């Protein structure tokens, strides 16, 4: 039982760490602070924010306007940025408010905001059975919708990490579906050049998604 002998006074040897001790202050100073670079916002985050917005507002025009407003609001309140969130997180937070404001504005007329249940209009149906209104336990589209939105954002943030030209070619080809010929004309490159860029972009994207998604 000798091992259990408690030696009094040993605990005094431990270093006392107060929450405001000097070591902690130094830690904070050494932490890399996030900085805002508004010049790069459009290139880096426009598509990401646009995807986020379009998941909540299906109207592309409105979504685009909200992204624009987000950048403007961000620029206006840049001096209030404390640097404890990453740039993109901070912008998303602004966009979230903008989306909520948008719905508030469209619902501002009294009564519009209330949820109307659309009961089955067929009054001559055999009966209003609760079973008919119960959620289908085998339905999977709600979950997969959420998952697909997250996947979209993951892909967008991976695209943002690509070199500018590769990202441009990949988005034009894959997302906007522009034909090879048109891209070559617009960017003044030849087709084999384009395919090499597509190849590099796809390889890098797959690596990035393997790290962040799977």
């Amino acid at each position, binding site marked *: 039982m000798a091992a259990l002998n408690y030696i009094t006074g040993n605990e005094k040897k431990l270093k006392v760490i107060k929450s405001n001790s000097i070591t902690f202050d130094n830690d904070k100073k050494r932490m890399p602070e996030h900085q805002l670079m*508004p010049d790069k*916002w*459009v*290139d880096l985050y*426009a*598509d990401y924010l*646009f*995807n986020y917005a*379009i998941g909540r507002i299906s109207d*592309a025009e409105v*979504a*685009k306007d909200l*992204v*624009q407003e987000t*950048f*403007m609001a961000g*620029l*206006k309140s840049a001096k209030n940025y404390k640097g404890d969130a990453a740039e993109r997180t901070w912008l998303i937070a602004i966009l979230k408010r903008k989306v909520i404001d948008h719905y508030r504005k469209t619902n501002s007329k009294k009564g519009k905001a209330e949820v109307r249940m659309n009961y089955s209009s067929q009054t001559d149906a055999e009966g209003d059975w609760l079973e008919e209104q119960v959620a289908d336990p085998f339905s999977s589209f709600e979950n997969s919708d959420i998952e*697909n*939105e997250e*996947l*979209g954002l993951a*892909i*967008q943030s991976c695209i943002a990490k690509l070199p500018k030209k590769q990202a*441009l070619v990949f*988005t034009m*080809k*894959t*997302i*906007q579906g522009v034909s*090879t010929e048109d891209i070559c004309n617009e960017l003044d490159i030849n087709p*084999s050049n384009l*395919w*090499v860029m*597509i*190849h590099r972009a*796809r390889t890098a*994207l*797959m690596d990035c*998604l393997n790290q962040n*998604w799977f």
Partner: protein
Amino acid sequence: MISCDKAAIICNKAQYREATFTEKLKLRFHLFMCKTCSKATKENTQLTTLCQKADLHSLTEQEKLKMKQILDKMN
């Protein structure tokens, strides 16, 4: 017999349905022989399905340029 580099390019073209019939035939033959390329092709196809599933949207360069101009005016 085509090289792996060439197979990769054809595979990418096939992702956008732009590979010709002979190219596809050459690719099939190559994949039959080359384990590495068939794995890469599988991954590449997976990326295409993911991109379709995610229903991606993006702004065109002109729209982005317009945004930049508006932001520049504010500065």
